[in-house]
């Protein structure tokens, strides 16, 4: 089996609390713009440093019900745009969970997500559904990701997944030479 192209990921931890909602991730006033502009304001009323200082490969940790609220998928797309490799939370809102994988942003449900300190170096392993806290050496177990979502995230999300599927269908319908 080939390794997922995005993972394992290693980066710094950004740590947030419970109920981090979509209106904080993708504020309504900027929703008329493209993703780059929305991303500049991602979480600005929670941590004004986040959008400017988050680096590709960093990992977001949070408490319960991450992504509560709207179905606006820009709330997941902004984190991917900013280079966040994975979100690890105690739980996700249902729509956000689907949106994350659809947009190619891996999500891990982890009961111990709150034990990671801000800035700690961490590594996520999607295949084994676990998170390594490289600062403490602890390994945090996460809930396994459903197989069909693992397949989709390997393709980079639902759009490239569909692209691949349609290409295969079209190839199958080509007349044999």
């Amino acid at each position: 089996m080939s390794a997922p192209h995005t993972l394992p990921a290693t980066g710094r931890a950004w740590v947030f609390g419970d109920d981090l909602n979509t209106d904080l991730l993708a504020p309504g006033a900027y929703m008329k713009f493209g993703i780059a502009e929305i991303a500049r304001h991602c979480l600005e009323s929670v941590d004004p440093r986040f959008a400017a200082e988050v680096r590709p490969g960093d990992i977001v940790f949070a408490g319960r019900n991450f992504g509560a609220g709207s179905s606006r998928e820009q709330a997941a797309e902004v984190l991917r745009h900013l280079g966040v490799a994975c979100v690890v939370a105690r739980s996700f809102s249902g729509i956000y969970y689907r949106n994350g994988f659809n947009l190619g942003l891996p999500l891990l449900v982890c009961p111990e997500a709150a034990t990671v300190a801000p800035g700690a170096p961490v590594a996520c392993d999607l295949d084994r559904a676990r998170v390594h806290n490289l600062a403490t050496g602890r390994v945090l177990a996460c809930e396994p990701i459903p197989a069909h979502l693992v397949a989709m995230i390997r393709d980079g999300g639902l759009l490239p997944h569909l692209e691949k599927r349609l290409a295969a269908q079209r190839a199958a319908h080509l007349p044999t030479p």
Partner: protein
Amino acid sequence: MSTAAVSLSAASAPQTLAQKLVARAAGVGHVTPGEIVTCRVDLAMMHDSGGPRRVKPMLDRLGAKVWDPDKVVVVTDHYVPAYDDDSRAIVQIARDWVKSAGVARFHDGEGICHVVVPQKGYLRPGMFAVGGDSHSPTGGAFGAYMFGVGATEMLGVLVTGEIWLKVPHTLRMAWNGRLAPGVSAKDMMLFLCTRFGMDGGQYQAVEYAGPAVQALSMQERMTLSNMTAELGAQAGLVAPDEVTRDWLARAGAGDVDLANWHTDEGAPLLADHVFDAAALAPQVAEPHSPAHGRDAADLAGVAINLAYVGACTGAKLDDLRMAAQVLRGRKVAAGVRLLVAPASLQDQQRAEAEGVLGTLVEAGAELLPTSCGACAGYGAHTFGPDVVAISTTARNFKGRMGSAQARIYLGSPWTVAASAVAGRVADPREMLQ
């Protein structure tokens, strides 16, 4: 035991309404909570913000067409009326796309999608539907399985006509007795959000049941199902009955089957909560969460400078009538603005015809266009930093309706109207006698 015997016993086992709806869409006799199935979609609803503007570029990239344009509905509600070049462009994409995609069911500036879709007679019991908006569970009030998805997920539906689903468990919320005068569906939902939290629904199906729910009007049931989103469930169902059938018949959706669409006695429930409707007092949620509810009387005295009657959950005809009941012969307090944004054009016209709108304006209300307005936080009428508002909307998240400094309380249309008159949070029952 043979396979045939197993499937026969599974098919005849008691099922929840949610199981029956999902099984029908999955084309099987029986589904088990927790299993992953693929469902055929009967109706896909999009609005201007998450709809054509987002899906068109992806459809173009795939070179794909909509699987069945007759099963698609597009409603403009987030960026109407357009207030600048950006919003104009977004709405224009929707107008152009429906033409090129062959989508005939397009409703431009006629109101909020969750209210317009049933009013056009597009929903009926037994259907399986998705909406590109988190308040899509509203469709559950009609005995349809309907839930919200993001735009890329919608793309998948538009291309394949299908969507995957983890078969939900059911949490039943049974309300015995009758609501007291001045207490509404909104109070029930603020109470439930506070009791169970914004993730209390566990992304399963909630079913509202019991005599107090059966006694609710169709639009009040829509408020229950709508705010299932705030409860964190996937769907919020009410078993259809004569109230549903009569309402749908008036909306032009006849031929409604009621026989099968209910939870069987003995069906498996993840939770079965029972509440006494008569004991519920008007509820108000404090900033910044619908789960911060308390009895309105406990917050009486909190001064407000804005009262907002708007949104799919709080400005339907029944909601406007509630506000008018309080405001008849009264005036909005000095220093308070009362804004009213009717949830649909049809509701606005009916409210006008029966004098409800006149009563609101007479009391000092300013009428805003029928659209999502300040509720979505997208439009021109968002709230400034000095605003302390009480609102009939569904969400009072920090910054959602404008400035992060604005403080927003949530209440029923009765409570919001009474608070507008008092200039402070008020229990409406004293003004309804």
